């Protein structure tokens, strides 16, 4: 079966909205509901975070949601159990996002296999370097038709961006600024970086993430990439409002009317 991310980008390659949330937050069993609401609200890609105790690339909001999720009892095993029938509910591309140690303890091969059984389309594991992935993990991901999505940042050289592009499938996660998640560094002064990467004519589509939190930042990210990823802002919204389809839809509409 064709990977849903690939399929999505064939159909559409601008104004893509991808939303991240931490599985197990606010409550342990919210995962399926949140996916359902997001997909009904018209989100193009959903990133399901599996929590880690020491999320190095994340700011306070995702640190906090991860901590709460762990306290609530979220583990990869629990998550896969929750997701086992998810493809009966939605055909939106699903990407898992979390840290390497959690995958390592689950088993890298087993992780890829179960993702493919469930119908997960990609994984973002920020602290799994590309060299390690190539040597040890790629074979399992290819077999499972699972995209490994890598990050590029303002400090990534052209040469490395090209290398990462060559090894990626699905999309490239373009980190908007030098920051951990949730920092609202202005992205308006990032145009030279966005242009630089744009001019490389990479083969994979790019989604911009980190510091995208409203319509304005979303729109400006879409100028130089195929779309954007919202994480901390959505989690904040979950923290401040009760979980319901209406609230989720309201949040999504505020970004993409």
């Amino acid at each position: 079966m064709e990977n849903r991310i690939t399929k999505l980008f064939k159909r559409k390659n601008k104004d893509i909205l991808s939303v991240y949330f931490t599985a197990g937050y606010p409550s342990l069993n919210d995962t399926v509901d949140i996916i359902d609401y997001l997909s009904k609200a018209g989100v193009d890609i959903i990133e399901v975070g599996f929590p880690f105790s020491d999320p190095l690339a994340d700011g306070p909001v995702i640190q906090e949601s991860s901590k709460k999720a762990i306290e609530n009892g979220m583990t990869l095993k629990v998550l896969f159990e929750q997701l086992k029938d998810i493809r009966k509910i939605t055909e939106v591309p699903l990407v898992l996002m979390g840290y390497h140690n959690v995958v390592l303890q689950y088993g890298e091969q087993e992780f890829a296999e179960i993702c493919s059984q469930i119908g997960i389309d990609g994984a973002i594991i920020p602290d799994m370097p590309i060299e390690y992935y190539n040597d040890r993990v790629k074979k399992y991901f290819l077999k499972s038709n699972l995209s490994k999505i890598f990050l590029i940042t303002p400090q990534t050289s052209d040469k490395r961006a090209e290398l990462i592009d060559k090894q990626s499938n699905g999309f490239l996660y373009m980190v908007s600024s030098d920051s951990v998640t949730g920092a609202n560094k202005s992205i308006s002064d990032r145009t030279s970086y966005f242009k630089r990467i744009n001019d490389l004519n990479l083969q994979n589509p790019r989604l911009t993430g980190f510091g995208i939190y409203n319509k304005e930042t979303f729109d400006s990210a879409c100028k130089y990439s195929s779309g954007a990823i919202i994480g901390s802002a959505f989690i904040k919204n979950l923290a401040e409002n009760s979980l319901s389809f209406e609230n989720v839809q309201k949040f999504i509409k505020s970004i993409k009317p």
Partner: protein
Amino acid sequence: MNIKICGLRESKNIKQIAALKPDFLGFIFYEKSKRVVKKLDKSILKYLPDSIKTVAVFVNQDLEEVTEIMNYYGFDYAQIHGNESPEYCKSLFLENIKIIKAFGIDESFDFYKLNEYKDFCEFFLFDTKDINYGGSGKTFNWEILNKYNIQKPFFLSGGIGLDNIDKVLKFKHPMLSGIDLNSKLETSYGYKSKEKTNKIIKIIHMKYIEPDNNGYYGEYGGAFIPEMLYPNVKELQDNYLEIINSENFVSEYASLLNDYAGRPTPLFYSESLSKKYSANIFIKREDLNHTGSHKLNNTLGQVLLAKKLNKKRVIAETGAGQHGVATATACALAEISCTIYMGEKDIKRQANNVDRMKLLGAEIVAADGGSKSLKDAINHAIREWINNPVDTYYLLGSIVGPHPYPDMVTRFQSVISREIKQQLKTKTGSEDPDYVIACIGGGSNAIGAFYHFINNEKTKLIAVEAGGKGVNSGKTAASITLGKKGIIHGSKTYLMQTEDGQIVEPHSVSAGLDYPGIGPAHAYLYDTNSIEVTSVVDKEALDAAFDFSKKEGIIPALESAHALAYLNKMKFKKNDVVVVNLSGRGEKDMEIYQEYLKDNNCKN
């Protein structure tokens, strides 16, 4: 130690061997050699990893041909392996060609004549004397090299393979900087076995506790970092060795250690402990290092490196505050601004050190999250580094974190065992003790105290972890004893974690040992039985601290008291020589000591 694999010629094999990341690859252009290259694919050289230097080997070849081949392929070095004269080398030198001059050695070799070559060469290479100019597969008597006393590094060559690598690694010479491997790794002429090469490279790296080019000690270490940190870490990986081995750095660092830190620190013979345990107990006085612990050895080195890399600001984590104080000190001296991240819990329990850091001009930021101790301070510092990747230098305080930190910090701390060796030699006539005992948090004082004794058959190396309230109490920091393999702070190692891979909050009364992981080098040394790992609980460490203070007039840091406490659990033979590394002094722990005294009033 540089590793050179020589005599390759087939593309596929070149790629296989290059993937094992030796430091040098050699290609033979001597027509009469059985390993002469025939059609060497030029493009393949271009795609070798940057870290590998390529060498073309010539024997009495026409100068013009040499230059032509060097230029055509873009080799990094020419290895001149025949009877060429100093003038011959000079003319290549003048063409900007870097030279490794090889000599066949036998009993009658005249080392004096090398003086005429030394200015034109980067390295010498000493091979077994042979009419065919090398490749004989035979070794020579390396003891002859004791006559060689010119300041020019050399490669040792000739018949080195898996069967005799142990012997090679025992051979010591101050100028030995590389090992040249060829025929013994072959399956046929010019074709190297991937398995044998892999195995021997690993053995050599481990002897010197050096990670491979990707930062691995066996399966441990590496650099598991998010892409945001890649340029920062890569900059360090690419530059640290060249900078810290440069003449200029070596001499600046050495004078800082001597004149500023006050090294060498004494090795003190403890009469009372020796009597108590019926052995010869020596105390390595890192508490007398400036700022009161071994930590300054590392921070002086890294701040010097930060300056050479033109960094404008240093950030660091600290647990006990000793690394923070040492960082603030080195930064004050170097006039570079400094921010220290410290867990809230540690800010309270090591208040004295917080005041010192402030006085030294550092900014202190409370790291929240987790148990608000060392692990969380590292998380905070790493995030801060992600937020400021360009001009900020992250100064890690132990042998943890992504490559190259474990190796870099190891190198800076190795001064401890270098001194112990010399001091023991003077005091006991032998430089090797029976035991070295050190406490282990991340592992920097332990690796420093062990470094020059690793793989020495006589010396047992004992690392004492913080047992906390008991290894099975759920409140412990015994990371190797309880740990499973995983990834923490960019490095694969043993760590305390749940089945799901969540890192478990550690506990130790001593803030410096309160860490759920361990340096990857120690994980490897543990697996290969090169060190013994054990633990003592909070109370044992506290009691040892009181006992030692009263008997010796030295108030130890709570961390170091763990090493002292382990003496109680050991059985010595009468003439055993034991070195305990006293990693720091105890002023910072006065409040904890006071409280313990109050709680145990009747006893003390």
